[in-house]
């Protein structure tokens, strides 16, 4: 029996893993899930009488999962959050480029109030324009790049003051 900890959508969850003769059993609270190994990094599980097909691999402190084609990424809470520039797991007050590229257009102004999903900036990379939206409600307090600037994924393009409710 091993005890593990994961971060799922901002929540820290404990699991217990146990090896059975043919399966791997995982307990999450009162719930028990049984996985059947099905090849390298592949598993299957029965949920409500239906087979679920799973690929799961750990790579550099991140868990990459494919569950019936739904893709998820989990981390361990101990992993350093701040090193991940794109703010995938927090830092909702900063707007990063999804990948290195060129700023095409900044869509908001200093002081503007934005909602979750408000379009913030368009960045061009891989021959395509990508619109980056706000991930939370807040007020624009810094615009660090302008159209034409090259950006990486480490420096925020826009910074927000989040609403207290967040």
């Amino acid at each position, binding site marked *: 029996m091993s005890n593990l900890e*994961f971060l799922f959508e901002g929540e820290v969850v404990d699991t217990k893993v146990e090896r059975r003769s043919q399966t791997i059993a995982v307990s999450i609270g009162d719930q028990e899930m049984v996985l059947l190994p099905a090849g390298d990094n592949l*598993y299957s599980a029965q949920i409500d009488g239906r087979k679920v097909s799973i690929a799961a691999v750990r790579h550099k402190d991140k868990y990459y999962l494919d569950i019936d084609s739904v893709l998820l990424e989990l981390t361990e809470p101990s992993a350093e959050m701040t090193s991940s520039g794109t703010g995938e797991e927090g830092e909702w007050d900063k707007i990063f480029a999804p990948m290195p590229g060129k700023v095409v257009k900044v869509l908001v102004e200093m002081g503007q109030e934005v909602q979750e999903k408000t379009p913030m900036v368009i960045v061009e990379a891989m021959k395509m324009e990508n619109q980056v939206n706000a991930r939370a409600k807040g007020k624009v307090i810094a615009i660090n790049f302008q159209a034409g600037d090259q950006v990486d994924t480490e420096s925020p393009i826009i910074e927000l003051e989040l609403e207290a409710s967040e």
Partner: protein
Amino acid sequence: MGKLFNKVLVANRSEIAVRVMNACRVLGIPSVAVYSDADTHSKHRYYADESVHIGPPPPRESYLDIDKIIAAATETGADAIHPGYGFLAENPLLAKKCSDAGITFIGPTPDAIRLLGNKVESRLTMADAGVPLIPGMKDSSGDIEAFQAAADTAGYPVIIKAAAGGGGKGMRVVHNPEELAAAVEAAQREAGNAFGDDTVYLEKYIVNPRHIEFQVLADTHGNTVHVFERECSIQRRHQKIIEESPSVALDPELRERMGASAVKVAEASGYVNAGTVEFLLDETGNYYFLEMNTRIQVEHPVTEMVTGTDLVVEQIRIAAGEKLSDAFFHLTQRGHAIECRIYAEDGENNFMPSTGEIVHYSEPVGPGIRVDSGVLHGSQVTIDYDPVMAKLIVHAPTREMCIDKMITALNNYKILGVRTSKKFMIDCMNHAAFRDGKTYTNFIEVNMADRDISLDAYRDIALAAASAAAVNRPQVASAVGDAKQRQPSPWEAIGAWQIGDVIHE
């Protein structure tokens, strides 16, 4: 059969380079890869018989540098160049410089590429050849009688568009002549307010258009054939993501007429080799020429699976001066094929490109399943190039079975490390509109807009899967002398290797 060429250089990368090299292998012709620094360890380089480095990652300094490509061919003794799609495929200058260097360009002549690359000129040519174009006004005019005449010629419904247009402003669909004058005036007002320019024009309004294209092949002996249609209506950001053949919208009579038009387009432009004639098809069976693509298309495999042909092999044969193979004079469509493009982009987040390392890679297998892939376990997907990683093509006797098979195959195609649109495509495939064949070009806007994946439903199984992956991490202790551990790729292992190191234990 004597060897058609001594050696073929493939001036491309990723899945299409591998695909072309497969055709070379079948023909017994050695192939040469070119690669940039970003592709030193890429699949297409592994796949070739030899490879030539052509520069740094930016395409302009490598895959788009015609002189480097020609030099690589000369250096390796390649007497033919296949351009794949994208990059230099439709650049008449590569075709021209090949010819100057005594190298065969596997594709059409520079003149045909130039003509068909010019939208205005090519439309005039096609109008003269009697190929239908979307009817409408040739130039904008404020005269309401000109609008009435144009509308009568085009046939209702028509659409009024702002010349300065965009975003739906100044746009009006008119279904009958009585509404026309008022609509033109309203559109002019709206355009004037929106753009400061009230010029509007009129063209036929295409109701529920589909994107239908015909594959054509022409040899140097005067034979031009079409290899039936592909329907590519499912697009996001004007880029096709799901293609199929045959189209549910075509009956044999319409197929024959459109095919004949496609052949006419090829003949009118003096076309040789493989090309694709694109049409817009409306709900009533009227079709309109859009353009002709002078290359092999991303979606060519659906045609191959339905007709049992090898289009890339045929491209090479044609370029070598051979007559079209017999098979192309007795073509039949059999069963149904669908292709899904596997891009490194996030189907759950507005198709945002995704980069990273592929940390798990396993392909679906089974009868009627084909994967054309440019990536391997360990491949790096970078921002340097197009995000297409692979294509999944499935064939089955009927469209319904093909859809079911595609869903199964997508589920069994496991790529971890970058995000893909797999789930998005499964949801498309499961949508009643798709199953009913209501595949219009606005399919994604209309049917997939309010799609929302709640990850909460996956919470427990995700945590269980991650827990299983955690206990399956490589055990360092057991790795010693345990050859069951997969060997790392040669480059990885050599990286850690030191000069003077003694390997024996």
